[in-house]
């Protein structure tokens, strides 16, 4: 992606158009908030705001991890991988069956202590493996034939939607009944209802910050997210594969001339995105307690919004965008009602596209 070079035109005034826009935007938000608190639409107590802040960070951390998959694939292929939400969905299923099937966690006997740590770790690894495999297979079967042909962008988008439909409906149909006129029954994995997680890590209060109770699950999500985000950031920046990904994102033809194996780089991009989505899916499932065929839709859409918010193609932007989106969403809920939660993300998306289509940090991979 070409970066725009700024031509120096004398000393830059602190009151240029961009900073003015930021100031106006922030002022508008502040005025709206004050008005909202005045007439009682928004809560006025600080600890309520703090609790929304913490929930915002928690869901934001998950959005950020999913957003990385969108942003990296976009950086490398300029493809909006709609099916990434289904990669996430597969992860929630892998996690629930690891807990139920592999460890046989019973509804009344959640594991404790070191066992709990081990169980959670393996669950996340299995979910990551399942999601990563899905992403790679998807690339191999659906996108690579298009890439070979040099297909149009529209063809990619339509394929992505097709893959998304196939994956989510596959899980819907795996309900133990016969389908497609086949004589045998399909295995009962998903189905129309939700598959509930057995209890693992406690959702109850552990300690409190400023009067807001913090549960172990919140700590888990934040801690894992921080570790994963740092690992990914370092991976993209320091390793050879990461370098390859950045090179292909910058200029695929030159990268291939310089000896970067483009095919392998694309596969590893999908793999890394899938792994992150899988870990995020395990955390999401453990937090909200369910896996369902349609569960990927909203997290996927919000993660995409987060990627755009931070600047699509930009790894750190996706992280920042995810956290910000989580916060905006929770603050929005604080002032409206929970039923508008999913609308808030779209409004943010449209607003970002209107005023700053390159996102907060701009479009580039690795920057």
């Amino acid at each position, binding site marked *: 992606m070409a970066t725009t070079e700024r031509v120096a035109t004398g000393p830059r005034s602190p009151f240029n158009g961009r900073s003015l826009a930021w100031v106006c935007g922030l002022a508008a938000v502040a005025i709206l908030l004050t008005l909202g608190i005045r007439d009682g639409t928004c809560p006025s107590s600080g600890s309520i705001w703090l609790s929304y802040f913490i929930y915002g960070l928690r869901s934001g951390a998950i959005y950020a991890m999913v957003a990385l998959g969108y942003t990296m694939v976009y950086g490398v292929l300029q*493809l909006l991988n709609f099916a990434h939400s289904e990669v996430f969905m597969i992860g929630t299923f892998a996690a629930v069956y690891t807990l139920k099937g592999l460890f046989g966690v019973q509804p009344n006997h959640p594991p404790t202590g070191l066992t709990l740590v081990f169980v959670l770790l393996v669950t996340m690894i299995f979910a990551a493996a399942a999601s990563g495999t899905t992403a790679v297979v998807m690339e191999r079967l659906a996108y690579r034939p298009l890439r070979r042909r040099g297909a149009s962008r529209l*063809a990619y988008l339509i394929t992505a939607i097709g893959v998304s439909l196939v994956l989510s*409906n596959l899980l819907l149909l795996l309900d133990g009944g016969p389908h497609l006129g086949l004589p045998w029954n399909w295995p009962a994995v998903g189905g129309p209802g939700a598959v509930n997680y057995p209890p693992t890590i406690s959702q109850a209060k552990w300690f409190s910050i400023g009067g807001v109770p913090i549960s172990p699950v919140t700590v888990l999500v934040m801690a894992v997210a921080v570790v994963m985000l740092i690992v990914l950031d370092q991976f993209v920046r320091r390793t050879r594969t990461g370098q390859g990904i950045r090179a292909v994102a910058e200029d*695929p033809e030159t990268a291939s001339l310089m000896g970067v194996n483009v095919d392998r780089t694309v596969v590893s991009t999908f793999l890394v995105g899938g792994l992150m989505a899988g870990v995020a899916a395990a955390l999401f499932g453990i937090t909200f307690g369910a896996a369902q065929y349609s569960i990927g839709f909203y997290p996927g859409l919000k993660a995409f919004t987060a990627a755009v918010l931070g600047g699509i193609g930009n790894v750190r932007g996706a992280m920042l965008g995810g956290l910000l989106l989580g916060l905006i969403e929770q603050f929005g809920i604080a002032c409206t009602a929970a039923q508008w939660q999913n609308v808030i993300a779209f409004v943010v998306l449209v607003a970002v596209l209107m005023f700053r289509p390159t996102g907060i940090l701009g479009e580039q991979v690795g920057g």
Partner: protein
Amino acid sequence: MSSETGEELESQARKAQEATPGGISEPGGPWHKRGRDRVRQFTAPIRGGMQRSRTWYEGLPTWAKAIVVVTVITVAALAPFIMNATLGVAAGYWEAIAVKIGIAALLALGLNVVVGFAGLLDLGYVAFFAIGAYTYAIASGAARFGIDTFANPTKHFPIPEWHMYMWLFFFLALAVAVGSGILLGAPTLRLRGDYLAIVTLGFGEIVRITANNLDSFTNGAKGINEIPAPAIGLPGVHYQFQGSFQSNPYYWLLLGVIVMWIFLLRRVNAGRVGRAWAAIREDEVAAAAMGVPTVRMKLGAFAMGAAVASFGGVIYAMWVGFISPDSFTLFGSEFSSVIILAMVVLGGMGGFAGPIVGAALVVFLPERFRSLGDSRYLVFGLVLVLVMILRPQGLIPSKRRARELTGGELHEQTLYEVREEASA
């Protein structure tokens, strides 16, 4: 690639094999190539026939073309009777399917303006369909009636009786849909195409969630019931439409609306606007450099698509008599955004016959083969992927669009090509 004959295709396939270094150990190359060659061999006679009939039609004088068109419309008008006679299970069953095909065809035609002509991917197309249906339901008073009745079950409210003026609501729905299309498009259409896909997807969800939450306007999730049917009240002709109990009048109404839209869209697409759309879709940067007002033209395509969908929505609301937010989803409902897209892609983008045939197939096949049942969305997904890999131009492509989509001389901003030799 519709202009090729079977022999040419075979010789091409041979050439491709000779050119591939690994061609001897792996005849035909990767699975999708082998599949494509197999499909091409298999369908060569059908495509030859299509090609011959197309050249035959194009060679006819104008009066003969008119006769052909009138014949096709007449056969289409008799379709419910034909289906009933050949497939009839219960009275009114295939008539209802015919109306569904008509609505689907109208929606596919509208989406084709956006996706096929201007090359923009709209994933929230059902929103405009919903806006049309809701505008009709609210304007006709059915929404108010439903909300009042629900709030006061014992009190008797008059059922709205507007029937004669219902036709005016077509224009109202059109205005609302076009207005919202422009409102949505104006900020987002100046961006790259793929953002549009996600914004429209969001828009589709916003419309659905809003219809779900605004109880005082749309009766929320309970939906709007008893939507009145229109009537014709010309001097000498009095006819009261009967909702879904008598589907054929709606089918003929739809047929008329479809013919009218095809006529209009053909005129638009053949003129300056159509050329601008083709230029934008093939290379937006070049089009802008040549002085095509890209944003305005894209907005035009968007608004026109919205207008077509709003007509579909109004007729749907009139016919079915009950709408709720669940009728207008991304996928899962009868006419959802993704299903309409599947119709356009399967039938072939950029023409007029393609979307209609696609709509007919997508509605008809699951009805004919009920064993598909719930699996049909899986099948549609597979169809989307396979069509994009094996025959990206769809079943009945427009010539120009086919060249673009198969990655020939003309293409939109292509992603880089990975050569077969380099990776082998």
